[in-house]
């Protein structure tokens, strides 16, 4: 079968004496192999040794708290608006007087979900956030998952813990 008229027929040249012996090419190949024995290894022993991540690496999302431990997110929806993959969704609620120590603004995100299957880790949400609330961590990957119900990250997994503060963005 011919796909186009531009097919070229190639006639192999007959091999000369050295080529018929095969030994020179075998030694040539062995030479390359032996050279590589003394070169620096390209691989690392992964779980024990880890590669350094780029300073602009964008990993797992985190919802930051402010210095007093209040949630910064005010559910303005700009991250969801900026998200090209439409991975973020939220529901807002009004803060009551008793909750003043929990949320910084009078409105807060009652539900905040990031679908990690959709997320492409572009970091546009981080750029859009006017309250410096959402960050993509520089040292944490989104973990692999075994079921689809684990993929949607709610506030329970996104909000920073009060005791173990994460270092992100300008903090570093």
């Amino acid at each position: 079968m011919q796909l186009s008229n531009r097919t070229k027929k190639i006639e192999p040249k007959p091999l000369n004496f050295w080529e018929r012996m095969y030994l020179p090419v075998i030694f040539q190949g062995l030479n390359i192999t032996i050279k590589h024995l003394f070169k620096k290894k390209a691989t690392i022993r992964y779980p024990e040794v880890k590669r350094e991540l780029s300073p602009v690496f964008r990993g797992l999302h985190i919802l930051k708290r402010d210095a007093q431990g209040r949630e910064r997110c005010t559910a303005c929806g700009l991250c969801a608006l900026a998200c090209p993959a439409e991975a973020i969704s939220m529901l807002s609620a009004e803060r009551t007087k008793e909750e003043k120590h929990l949320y910084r603004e009078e409105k807060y995100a009652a539900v905040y979900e990031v679908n990690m299957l959709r997320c492409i880790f572009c970091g546009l949400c981080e750029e859009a956030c006017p309250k410096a609330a959402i960050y993509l961590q520089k040292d944490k990957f989104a973990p692999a998952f075994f079921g689809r119900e684990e993929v949607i990250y709610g506030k329970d997994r996104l909000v920073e813990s009060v005791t173990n503060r994460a270092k992100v963005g300008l903090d570093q």
Partner: protein
Amino acid sequence: MAKITFDGIQIEVADGSTILQAARQIGGSIVPPAMCYYSTLKGTGGKCRACLVKVTAGSEKDPRPMPKLVASCITPVQDGMIVENTLNEEVLSTRKSIVEFLLINHPLDCPICDQAGECDLQNFAFEHGNVKQRYEEERREFDKIDIGQYIKLHMTRCILCYRCVYTADQLTEKRVHGVMNRGDAAEISTYIANSIENDFSGNIIDVCPVGALTDKTFRFANRVWFTKPVDAHRNCDKCSGKVVLWYRGNDVLRVTARKNEYNEVIDFICNTCRFEKKETSDWTIEGPRKIERTSVISQGHYLEGTQVADFTKRVAQEQYKNIDDLPVQPPRQLSPDTAR
């Protein structure tokens, strides 16, 4: 009829109409922005100074320029008048200052505000304002007030455009709210915390150019740009019943009156339609509302005729540099063979 020239465009308008009305007859990007003027309400205008224009020739008989910039929404046209808006550097720089002035006491809490996304002040500041503010002093603050069952007043956000006062004056018989005190202390208030119980009181939410008067039934329910506007109507004995329903999924989150391209209500609607009819079964759906492509509300609706907002074009034009170190290559002729 009076013949005027607006930004180099000649137009004939009826005597007694204002410069702003003439500009709106031309339409497009040359129309001055307006924060307080409302075409359907009498007596509005002249307060926010957003629509200032330069009159370079007063009239045919007296072609001297007007000494100061004039508010186009209250200045009547005269035959032979020449007006400059977008062509005049002075107008544009003044407008920047006006934005700065309007934002002096504005809290800039757009991430919280329910008006964000359809806010006149937001658009105005985005189009004409500076990125930075110089104001460092304390802004005035007020407590939030519930006026009536359905309306919340955030006086902090108010820019004192008086639109809601005119609405109450002209739509209803007994107005119970107004502007109290003077100057810096001026504020919109109900007389001794009187609640507004009138059937058309909800319209002051629609006419408010900022988020000072907001719908309590929609308070923090969702961002405007995540809701889907749908035109609908119902038989109402009090008003025309022509509204826009704002859907999120199958829920009607909010009902508003229909607005024209300048964000002005066409038909005022009653409180029953606005606050109490929030079921799809109450309405006859006409179809999705057309939203300008440049509006944030149209996000996520991938329609044809996508337009880039003016702002990005303007920035690109400002930053564009001619690179002339390479001779321009003539476009290569593609023969059918190489084109394959």
